[in-house]
């Protein structure tokens, strides 16, 4: 039988979890070359909400935890399809086609946009199932000659840490709003206007007329079969692999870097008292174990030598 048993109720555990969850921040950026265009993104996100449950199989489970995209910019560069005048047939081929064509005068060039899509993307961690793992942290800064009190004063104590070790992290596909598609379309329209800023209005109107609806220009340039927001879904979630990046970051965050609970070893059970004990009373903790049932988290340990 263990020397020490401590339990945290489901509600207490929720508070511990919330504190860890709320400190999760992820910033990521990348760029890539794709078929017919280049793209980049920069994102900052955090976690919020979620429904936590403690299970009798010694696991915890969080469902529907929001991934809140605090900021997101997506940059895309593509070459504007050639807009040409001339090139008409002067001498037709009697059988088929054209023998002689007029020269063509074309306009073209790169179009680059960087719309701010902050707040236009939602996703969630649909399921995070984990077990709790206690790990002992040997503080590398602690000197071999340090006593426990010396280490505590220097802030170099060894510690027991309890981590949420994810068994699986499932992230829902990135959901880009239709508004983001509109913002993207507007950005392309503005970019083309900007590129033509020195042109007379009639030339701008002619080029816009030849180009046709901007949404079709974008779809053609970027090989988009569906909606622009679906393209962004795929670009961010799959092409740039943001879903996998989020999954990995969340798993590493909980499993490696951010214990849900930790305390120093030896554990202080009495503060120093001038009358009885001039130095704090500490007991070494050994054999720390963590178990979960549907009602609470139970931590057991022995007092070691």
């Amino acid at each position, binding site marked *: 039988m263990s020397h020490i048993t401590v339990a945290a109720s489901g509600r207490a555990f929720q508070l511990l979890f919330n504190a860890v969850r709320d400190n999760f921040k992820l910033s990521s950026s990348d760029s890539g070359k794709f078929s017919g265009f280049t793209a980049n993104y920069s994102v900052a996100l955090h976690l919020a909400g979620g429904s936590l449950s403690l299970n009798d199989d010694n696991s915890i489970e969080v469902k529907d935890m929001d991934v809140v995209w605090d900021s997101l910019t997506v940059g895309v560069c593509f070459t*504007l399809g050639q807009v040409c*005048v*001339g090139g*008409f*047939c*002067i*001498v037709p081929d009697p059988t088929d086609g054209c*023998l*002689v*064509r*007029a*020269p063509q*005068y*074309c*306009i*073209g*060039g*790169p179009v680059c946009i960087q719309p701010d899509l902050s707040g236009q993307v939602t996703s969630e961690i649909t399921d995070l199932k984990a077990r709790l793992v206690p790990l002992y942290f040997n503080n590398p800064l602690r000197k071999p000659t340090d006593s426990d009190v010396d280490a505590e004063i220097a802030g170099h104590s060894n510690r027991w840490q309890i981590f949420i070790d994810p068994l699986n992290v499932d992230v829902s596909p990135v959901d880009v709003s239709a508004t983001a598609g509109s913002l993207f379309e507007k950005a392309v329209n503005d970019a083309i206007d900007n*590129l*033509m*800023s*020195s*042109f*007379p*209005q*009639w*030339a701008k*109107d*002619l080029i*816009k*007329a*030849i*180009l*046709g*609806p901007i949404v*079709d220009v974008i779809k053609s340039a970027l090989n988009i079969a569906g909606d622009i927001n679906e393209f962004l879904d795929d670009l961010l979630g799959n092409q740039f692999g943001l879903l996998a990046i989020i999954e990995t970051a969340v798993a590493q965050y909980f499993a490696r870097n951010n214990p849900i609970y930790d305390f120093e070893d030896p554990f202080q059970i009495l503060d120093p008292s001038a009358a009885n004990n001039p130095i704090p009373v500490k007991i070494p903790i050994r054999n720390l174990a963590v178990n979960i049932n549907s009602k609470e988290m139970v931590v057991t340990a022995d007092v070691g030598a």
Partner: protein
Amino acid sequence: MPLTIDPHVLTQTTLDSGSLTVLAALIHSFPEPGQYRGVATQGTSPGTVFFISVDPNSPALQADVDLPALQNGRSSTQGCSPTAVEPGCHFVVNPRGHVVFFVSSGAGGFTVKVRNVNANVTSFDSQQLKPGDLLAATLIRPGTYSVTNASGGPPAQVQVAYPTIGNTPFRPPDTVTIQCTPNGFSPASIALQPGQGQIYQFAIPSRIKIELIKPDDGPGGTPTPAAPKRKKVPAT
């Protein structure tokens, strides 16, 4: 980085077959096989010599002679292959083919003369187009243009509509063919969409000039002053 376009394409509102610029091209056929020597002249600068071999064995039915490229010595011009014997560009075309003289970029203002080397006769003079020659013109600036023939006859009028941004990409309608006859142009009044091709055919020796006389700046556009009328210089 702005869109790439030669600014002359946007500012060229006068086309003159005798002083070739962007948006206009002259088409000539050399039915007689042989060697031809051409000279392209821009303003008062010395002419640039080029050569055309009209060869029945050539599969080429179109030779494109980009006049400013000749002047700049760009041997990469399509169909241009200088030889060790003659440094100018050499083009080869089948007698049943056509040679297209055009200005790809720049201010233009080229005249072209081509002689048959062996017969020593002028086969083509861009300042006096003959039956069989063609002028291909493209007007993109909306407005009203006057078309005159230096050989005389009443002018024609061309109306280029203001572009309409629609639900589908605009594509110019089929080309319009205009006959240049002793009695003037037929048709004499032409309504075009911007970029719609015009092909001028000649029944008489001709030099065609197309000039913008009233720009159309579209709905809500700021009216642009019309080009000043030139005073007629009395013949001396």
